[in-house]
């Protein structure tokens, strides 16, 4: 089936600026234009302070741009109310954080279930979907464990399961392998790539690790808040 002509990108930033005004004004992003299509496996690259996390936060609607817009499938979301943004994130986005950020008092399965709890999914269905997601990340036998009984790699895989359990259109991952050793980080990237290829989940992740960036099919480079390069790697597609 061919795509309809002029189908809007999944996510698009237009002239996005972010200025932090703590003490003196610091421009974290300076007019970034970026389009991400459905199904992409894209990395945001750049050194610390280049604006990767800020851009991910803006795309993830966790923060508001000082200027410019963020749109999803042609709909501007950057000016929505706090509640509308929460609902949007709940339905459309998944997040994976550098330090896993699992809720320590919940088991792995309960952590994965949580987006579904917020969506008021019926408990039985919730549990089934959570176990499916854990199976996808290879942790179906670890559902009853609390995060402190899981290794860093396992915790991050639970975080990935939590990010995909509600079938979001985009998963944002901020330095997902930064706290993992290279082997475990490699496994995590294998998993993310598999979810992207097999299940069509769009991934946008940030990293400054060249080994990680090697795995992306598209690398968007940022430097001092500006987009400096946008490389598509046909060899990785």
């Amino acid at each position, binding site marked *: 089936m061919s795509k309809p002509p002029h189908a809007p990108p999944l996510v698009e930033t237009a002239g996005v600026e972010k200025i932090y005004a703590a003490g003196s004004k610091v421009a974290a992003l300076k007019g970034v234009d970026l389009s991400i299509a459905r199904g992409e496996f894209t990395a945001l690259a750049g050194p610390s302070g280049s604006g990767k996390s800020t851009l991910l936060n803006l795309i993830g609607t*966790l923060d508001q741009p000082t200027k410019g817009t963020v749109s999803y499938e042609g709909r501007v979301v950057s000016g929505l109310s706090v509640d509308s943004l929460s*609902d*949007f994130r709940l339905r459309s986005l998944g997040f994976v*954080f550098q330090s896993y950020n699992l809720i320590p*008092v919940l088991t792995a399965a309960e952590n994965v279930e949580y987006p579904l709890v*917020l969506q008021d999914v019926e408990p039985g269905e919730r549990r089934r979907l959570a176990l499916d997601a854990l199976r996808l990340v290879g942790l179906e036998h670890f559902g009853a464990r609390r995060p402190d009984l899981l290794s860093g790699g396992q915790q991050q895989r639970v975080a990935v399961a939590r990010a995909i359990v509600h079938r979001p259109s985009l998963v944002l991952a901020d330095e997902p392998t930064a706290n993992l050793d290279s082997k475990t980080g490699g496994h995590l990237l294998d998993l993310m790539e598999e979810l992207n290829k097999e299940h069509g989940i769009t991934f946008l992740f940030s990293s400054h690790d060249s080994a990680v960036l090697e795995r992306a099919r598209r690398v968007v480079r940022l430097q001092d808040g500006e987009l400096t390069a946008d490389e598509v790697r046909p060899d990785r597609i």
Partner: protein
Amino acid sequence: MLRLAWRNVWRNRRRSLINVAAMGFGLAAIMFGQSMMRSLQFQLIEKATGSFTGHVRIERRDVDELKFPDKFMTDPEPAASLLAADPRVLVWGRRIHLTGLVSSANMSLGALICAVEPDKERLITNMASYLKEGRYLEPGTKGIVMGRKIAGRLDVRVGEKVVLMAQAADGSMGAEAFRLVGIHETGSESFDGQMVWIPLSAMQELLGRPGQANELAARLKNIEQADAAAADLDAKLGPGNIGAMSWKKIDKEIIGIQAFQDGLLTIVLIVVFIIVALGILNTQLMSLFERVREFGVLMAMGARPRWIVRLLIVESALLGLVGTAFGLAVGSALIGHFGRCGLALPVGDAFKYFMPFPSVIFLRPSWGMHSFACATVFLVTLLATLPPALRAGRLKPSEALRHV
């Protein structure tokens, strides 16, 4: 949410236990204080009405002192028939209270003479229960009962005679010999050192006032009905010189003590509530600062700010429920223990001067007040959570996620 909230409550077990203990012991202390005050007041009222005042009295409105009416009702029968017809009245009796002189072979002393209908008075007051020697009064006899102290000062023993003198209706001094039939010991200076009890008929004869009385005292089936019964009787008696009043109007000092104690208790309660509130506020603020990043994660997952606020309130409610249940258990156990064993209080000795009063208070639960205290502790817990909860609700997800 409930599951997450419950686990969050016990995330820092030691801190939560300290909070539960603070809440619980605070509530138990409140319940104990409430029970102690109410039990003290209950015993005070029981002793005041049960040893002298009665629940409702009918007497002349123009008396100088309501407690010891010095003026006579020349025809108390219409009022008596009202008491007899009132279904709330358990028992009633005619009385004469008058100051007079009681003399033995050795000495004469001033005394408060209480002339009563013995059969009825046994049920109106409990003076008969304080008898230590001899027997109680019998109607139509010339017997006299008096306290151990006055008997000692007069140097009389059961079976010996004394002479009572009081001013008769015609202004002359009436005098009559009475045989000491009983000696009571109430422990009260006033009762044991100043009061003597004789049958009403003998007093009427002594004073030359047949059929007269200066008060009608009634004991009700339920003391709570005293005000209503007195008001009804008073209305029925009409605007004349004879009126009905409840014990509250006569024993005003008890109402004053009660108001003072209630005021004191209220201040103590407010202080305890503030301590509980500050404890919870502190816990929730610490919990908030520890979990800012986690709230950021929840918000990133799509939790609305008010969901976060609700989560913190539910956590607090659970903590409040546990603390309240613990406090209720400790408070009930304390009240139960001191209800069985009694609590020795020096305040009993202070009251003893005025009336027979035990120095041991037997605590009884006051569930209405305890429920109020439980509800208030619980409510205070919720209110103390609001500032940190609202603060958490105002967090920006990106800032919360950066929180270290």
